């Protein structure tokens, strides 16, 4: 394919002998970090609402950023962990900001997304019931003591106890204690408000 005259090539990063010492192919070093990022993403991201496309996009962003930042063997040899860290985190932050901007744009353009299943006449009663139960549970969680509330939210969102402990910097025992107390409080509040296991079963998803 001949060079295009109508549009200059988009060179993301380049360097020549002046900047490069003897430089090996940078791919293996980059692949190592990208693979770790990809593994971490795939381990947790699916269950937290990220699509395959988004995971792939994020991985690609990190790969390109590393490629651009570590374009020379010299830089790879010298790159301390903190430099890799900054590069990868910075790529992730940019990706998150673009993701947020897209989300805001979609919300502005598509207000009908705020409509829920209540708009389907045949499902109105069931939806109302689901909605009531969900509202009651949401309120009951909001009413929990702060330290227990965060743990309960994380647990209900699918985080393992060890993960919660790690993120909060707590011991496993402290996490377990606060989680069980929080869940007990939640159940007691829901029972007091008339939300029983039967209420939940009556309002399937």
């Amino acid at each position, binding site marked *: 394919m001949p060079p295009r005259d109508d549009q200059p090539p988009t060179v993301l990063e380049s360097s020549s002998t002046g900047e490069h010492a*003897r430089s090996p192919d940078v791919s293996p070093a980059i692949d190592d970090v990208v693979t770790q990022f990809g*593994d971490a993403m795939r381990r947790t991201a699916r269950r937290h609402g990220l699509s395959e496309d988004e995971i*792939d996009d994020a991985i690609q962003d990190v790969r390109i950023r590393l490629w651009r930042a570590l374009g020379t063997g010299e830089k790879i040899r010298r790159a301390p962990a903190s430099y890799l860290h900054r590069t990868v985190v910075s790529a992730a932050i940019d990706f998150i900001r673009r993701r947020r901007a897209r989300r805001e744009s979609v919300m502005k353009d598509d207000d009908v997304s705020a409509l829920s299943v209540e708009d389907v006449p045949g499902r109105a009663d069931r939806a109302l019931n689901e909605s009531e139960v969900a509202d009651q*549970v949401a309120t009951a969680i909001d009413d929990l003591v702060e*330290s227990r509330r965060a743990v309960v*939210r994380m647990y209900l969102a699918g985080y393992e106890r060890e993960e919660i402990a790690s993120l*909060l910097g707590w011991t496993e025992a402290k996490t377990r204690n606060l989680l069980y107390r929080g869940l007990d409080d939640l159940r007691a509040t829901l029972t007091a408000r008339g939300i029983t296991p039967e209420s939940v079963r009556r309002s399937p998803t």
Partner: protein
Amino acid sequence: MSDEALRDVYARIMRKRDATGRVTAVSVEQMQVVLERRGSEEDRVRTLDAIMRDQETRADFEILRAAYEAAPKHPSRTALPYAFAAALVLFVGAQVWRQMRTPPPDALRGSGAAVAVVAPGPSAPAGVPLHFTWHRVADATAYAIQIVDADGGVAYSAVTTDTAVVLPDNVRLREDRAYRWWVEANRPTGGPVKSLVQPLRVVGR
């Protein structure tokens, strides 16, 4: 009410919140504070509680968390000791370096997925701009080109989204010296693919 039932209702709450477009305003910087365990414990708990209030914010947090896991700021205590890690890097670097002095094996296989180069040919006249071009690879998001001299020193490298690169004026390939160049296409899936290694000699007029 069982944990499973509570999780089902909680998932419903999250979907409902997402449908209304109500997203918790937790900044990326606040998320970093949590991941870096900075600030007070109370603040971190409060931030995590806010992050867990909707799926989108939680997904943002997970992307950032994956970046932190992939490239930790400081090597963990369980990581390889520095000296061994450094030796490993040197070893890998040496292997890569050796691969580079001989053409990369992947580049020689010439599989159907490889990058097909177009120009320049094995010799190019001195004093005119050197255009490097290649065919597009399906799904490729970026291409890295490397030009090395006979000793393996990198004369020029660049990452581009295009299928062509013009050697900048400030990069001079010496006349009658043997160079080699190749292109590596980066793809979101299936891993990178390379071109055959191309010989290049700039011939004086």
